[in-house]
C-alpha cells in the first residue's frame, strides 16, 4: 500500500470540496451573527443599569468558560423538549454564533474602553442621545483598531466548525470521516482536511496581518 495514495486523494477531492462549502458557509453565517450580537452584548455590559450589565457579564463569562460542544448539545438536544425544533445546521450555526458573540463582545469592550473619555464628555456636551452617540462618534473610533482581533476570532471560529460534526452536520470533517469509513482509508481524507484548514487559516491570518499593518499606517 502506498504511503499517500494520490489517485485516491484526487478521487475524493470533489466530495471534500463540496462539503468544504458548508464549512465556509457556516463560518460566514455564524460570524455575521456573532459580530452583531457581540456588539449588543458589549454595549449591554457597559450599560449604567445594573439590571442590564450584570446578566450580560454573567452570560458572557459563563459562555466563554464552557465548551462549545456542550452548548451545541444543549441547543440540539434540550431545546426540542420545549418545542424549539432546530435542524442540526441551525443549532450548529446558532451555537457557534452565540459562543463567538461572547468572545467578540470582549473585543468590542476593549475597543470601546480605548475611546478617550473626552469623546464621551463631548457627546454629553452636544446633548446627543446614547444611540446617536454610539453610532456617530464612539463606534467609528472603537471599531477601527479592533478589526484585526475580530479577524483572528473568525479564524478560530473556522477551526471550531468541525465540532458541529458531533450533531450530525455534514461539514468537511464529517465528510472526511464518512469517506474514511467507506474506503477504510483515513490517511488521505483526514490529512486533506487538515491541509484545507491550514491553507485557509494561514491565508486569513496573512490577510489579518495586512489589515493590521494598514491600521498602523493610517494612524
Amino acid at each position, binding site marked *: 500500500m502506498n504511503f499517500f495514495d494520490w489517485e485516491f486523494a484526487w478521487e475524493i477531492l470533489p466530495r471534500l470540496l463540496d462539503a468544504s462549502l458548508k464549512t465556509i458557509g457556516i463560518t460566514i453565517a455564524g460570524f455575521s451573527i456573532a459580530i452583531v450580537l457581540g456588539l449588543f452584548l458589549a454595549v449591554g455590559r457597559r450599560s449604567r443599569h445594573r439590571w442590564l450589565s450584570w446578566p450580560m457579564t454573567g452570560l458572557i463569562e459563563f459562555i466563554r468558560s464552557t465548551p462549545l460542544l456542550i452548548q451545541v448539545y444543549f441547543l440540539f438536544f*434540550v431545546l426540542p423538549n420545549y418545542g424549539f425544533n432546530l435542524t442540526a445546521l441551525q443549532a450548529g450555526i446558532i451555537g457557534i454564533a452565540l459562543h463567538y458573540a461572547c468572545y467578540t463582545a470582549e473585543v468590542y469592550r476593549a475597543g470601546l474602553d480605548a475611546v478617550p473619555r473626552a469623546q464621551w464628555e463631548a457627546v454629553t456636551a452636544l446633548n446627543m442621545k446614547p444611540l446617536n452617540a454610539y453610532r456617530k462618534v464612539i463606534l467609528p473610533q472603537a471599531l477601527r483598531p479592533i478589526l484585526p482581533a475580530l479577524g483572528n476570532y473568525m479564524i478560530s471560529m473556522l*477551526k471550531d466548525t468541525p465540532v458541529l460534526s458531533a450533531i450530525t452536520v455534514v461539514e468537511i*470533517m464529517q465528510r472526511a470521516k464518512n469517506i474514511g469509513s467507506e474506503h477504510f482509508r483515513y490517511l488521505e481524507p*483526514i490529512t486533506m482536511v487538515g491541509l484545507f484548514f491550514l491553507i485557509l487559516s494561514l491565508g486569513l491570518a496573512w490577510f489579518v496581518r495586512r489589515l493590521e499593518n494598514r491600521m498602523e499606517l493610517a494612524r
Partner: protein
Amino acid sequence: MTVQITFFGSLLAIVAALIGALGRLSPIKPLRWLAIVYVEVFRGSSLLVQLFWLYFVLPMPPFNIAMSAFNVAVIGLGLNIGAYGAEVLRGAIRSVHEGQYEACQALNMTAGQRLRRVILPQALLAAIPPGTNLLIELLKNTSLVSLITLSDLAFRARQLDQATLMTLEIFGLALVMYFVLAQIINFSMRTLERRLARGRMRGGMS
C-alpha cells in the same frame, strides 16, 4: 477523566511550549524552521482534525501506531495548546528587557545560565495571564475527546442523556461543572501569579 486529561495535557503543553518557544528563538536555523512548522501546523489546522488524525490515521498501515484514546487525547491536546503556548512564551521572552541581557553579559554568564536564572523566571511570570486563558481553553477542548470515544464529562453527559432522557438537567449540570472547573483554574493561577510575583514587581520590572 476530564480533570486527568486537563492535567496531563497541560504538562505536555508546557513542555511543548517551552521547546517550541526556545526553538523559534534559537540561533540555529533548521531548529527555528522546525519550530515554526510545528507551531503553524498545530495552530493552523483544527484541533478536532488533529485528534482524528492521531486516532484514525496513525493506527493504519503506513504508521501502525495504535494509541489508546486517552493517550491520543493527552498528546493531541497537549501539542495543540503547546503550539499556542509557544507563541505566548515567545512574546514573553521577547518582552524581557534588553538591559537584562546586557547585565548577564556583564556578569559573564553562559547562554544556558542566562536563560535559566534570569530570562525564564521573568518570562514565565509574564506568560501566566495568557497561559491561564490557554489552560481554560484546554479544559474546554477536553470536551472534544468524547468524540474519539473517551468517556469524559461530555461523553458521560451524552450517555446519561440517552439512558434517562433528563436532557435539561444533564446538559445544564455539565455546563455548570465546566464553568466551576474553569473558575478553579482561574483562581489558582491568580494565586500562583501573586506568589511568584511577590517582591518582584516592586523592582519595577515590566
